[in-house]
């Protein structure tokens, strides 16, 4: 498995897209800091970008990579290697390379602009951690889709819809539900609904970390009570990990049964 992971990883490291992705974050980081000069404000802007972009890139990259390396995968399948090793190895390879592009690409400019002198260092690292976790989650979802559908067009289409669902549609439905039931106490519902969407969960975690929670009035305080405690933080990190582990298990199960 390590060997396959290594292979996928180096393969991607050599690929143009990884560089473009890396350079994009590098440029983004420098431009943000150049325009703002203020690390804390740059972190807030980054939040908006990361929670939308990392899932999108993760899904598209995942699907694309899977389809492109299909022939090679089939070659590997002919060898005496466990199927789960092949797919999990590939999955980890791509997730790691995407996360690396993100962490290094954003890390360099922020280090250059004196992150260590800033109080935002903890927030910045939690932002990177969450960005990396989102990459892992959405690559796993993309792999699942690609495993289920041999048709490229279908796979791509569904991958984009998945992203769209979590990034936009889910929040829309969420908002409409809350507006329809606004006669009822909604705190718990809102908490629950956030948990089931990794993007929402990441967003709330970072918003509360950036300490604007107290600016959100009464309801903000309710969320702060949950997410602000170490239990809440731990709980949400566990949930995010579950969002990685469950799709990964699905990959393993599906790949075992799939007829290539």
């Amino acid at each position, binding site marked *: 498995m390590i060997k396959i992971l290594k292979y996928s990883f180096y393969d991607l490291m050599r690929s143009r897209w990884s560089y473009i992705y890396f350079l994009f974050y590098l440029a983004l980081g420098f431009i943000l800091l150049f325009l703002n000069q203020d690390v804390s404000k740059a972190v807030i802007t980054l939040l908006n970008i990361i929670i939308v972009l990392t899932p999108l890139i993760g899904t598209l990259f995942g699907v694309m990579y899977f389809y492109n390396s299909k022939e090679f995968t089939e070659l590997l399948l002919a060898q005496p290697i466990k199927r789960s090793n092949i797919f999990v190895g590939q999955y980890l390879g791509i997730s790691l390379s995407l996360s690396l592009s993100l962490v290094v690409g954003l890390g360099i400019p922020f280090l250059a602009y004196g992150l260590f002198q800033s109080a935002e260092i903890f927030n910045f690292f939690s932002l990177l951690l969450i960005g990396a976790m989102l990459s892992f989650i959405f690559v796993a979802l993309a792999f699942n889709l690609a495993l289920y559908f041999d048709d490229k067009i279908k796979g791509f289409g569904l991958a984009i819809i998945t992203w769209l669902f979590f990034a936009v*549609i889910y929040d829309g439905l969420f908002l409409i539900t809350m*507006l329809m039931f*606004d006669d009822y106490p909604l705190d718990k519902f809102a908490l629950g609904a956030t948990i089931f969407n990794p993007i929402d969960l990441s*967003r709330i975690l970072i*918003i509360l970390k950036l300490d604007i929670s*107290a600016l*959100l*009035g009464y309801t903000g305080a309710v969320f702060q009570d949950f997410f602000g405690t170490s239990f809440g933080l731990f709980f949400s990190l566990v949930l995010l990990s579950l969002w990685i582990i469950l799709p990964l298990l699905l990959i393993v199960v599906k790949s075992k049964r799939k007829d290539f």
Partner: protein
Amino acid sequence: MIKQLFFTALLLFAFTELTAKQIKVCKSCGYTSIKEAIAAAENGDEIIVEAGIYQEYDLRIEKPIKLIGIDHPTIDAMEKGYIFEVLSDSVTISGFKLINVGKSYTSDYAAIHTYRIDNFVIENNIFINPFFAILIEKSHNGIISKNIIKGNAVHEHNSGNGIHLWHASKIEVNDNIIEQMRDGIYFEFAKHSSISGNKSRRNIRYGLHFMFSNDDRYENNMFENNGAGVAVMFSKRIYMRKNIFRLNWGTASYGLLLKEIYDADIIDNIFEQNTIGVNAEGSNRVVFENNNFKSNGWAIKFLGACYGNKLMRNNFMHNAFDISYNGRINGNIFDKNYWSEYTGYDLNKDNIGDIPYRPVKLFSYVVNRTPETIILLRSLFVDIINFSEKVSPVFTPDNLKDFNPLMKPVNDRN
């Protein structure tokens, strides 16, 4: 005739000068307690109290005298009642350290209490854990300055206010520091008074509280971390300038709460990191000019019945919501403000954006209706609906626009 008058005046003056004597109080002086010294003093005398601890309370001052503490002598009321009760005009109290004023649910015990007097000075005193520190009732023409008041209030029902004015006029409250009381400064029926250079922090209710007090001004004060910020209610013609309202965080906390305020001027103030910068209700003809609203949850929240307010040349920077309205009618004027979220352009380079800015977002309307939806703040979906509302307003007031949004902040003071 005039010469004669002058001469008599001079004589009188010399006479009072002669009679005004100094009475010293200390452990080894003629007088060892302040009460005795006050009893012995005559009009215009000075009582000099030297450093030490004096266990005394309910000191009634019924003649115009000056009480001056050297090196902050401590007066310990042993939780039994008032310390100074001033019942005479022209009294000065300065340089004392006043501790352990009694707590009561029936009397307003205060370290210094004035009643029906005129022309007084209270300065350079230190108050530690008072119930009320300075309570001014029906008194006029006074100066309260450079006092330090440190309380230990925890609950509203059994704590008192730092500086409390009730039916007073022409009082100057300058350069005091007030911490952890119920209300830092409370003006009730106080007229023609000014509050300047004070710092009011960590009070459990309001840093500054106005009720039925007209024609007052407050300038250069700092209000920080108070339970509910600053409240100005039921008052007319209040002038507020160069104050700083910071870090008033909480479920019902405001930088500045305006309720039933008419014809006020709010100029050159800074509102920074408050849950709600300004919460206005029933406020009319208020002028907001040159204020900085920075990183607040809501910069200004207009509730019902706010008409004829003018907002000009203010900076709105990085607030989660700039303006919030709960109706569809706009009776206020927004002009030439700087909005950090403005995305328009300026073709003729006159520093005025060519497209009007709409400061009310659809999402702020949604949050007003259902507060829990705040959880979707900064979500992509919310950005999309805000954008569509911006293009064609359906829910937010149609005419609520800043027609001349500035491209650069008004004299950037950061």
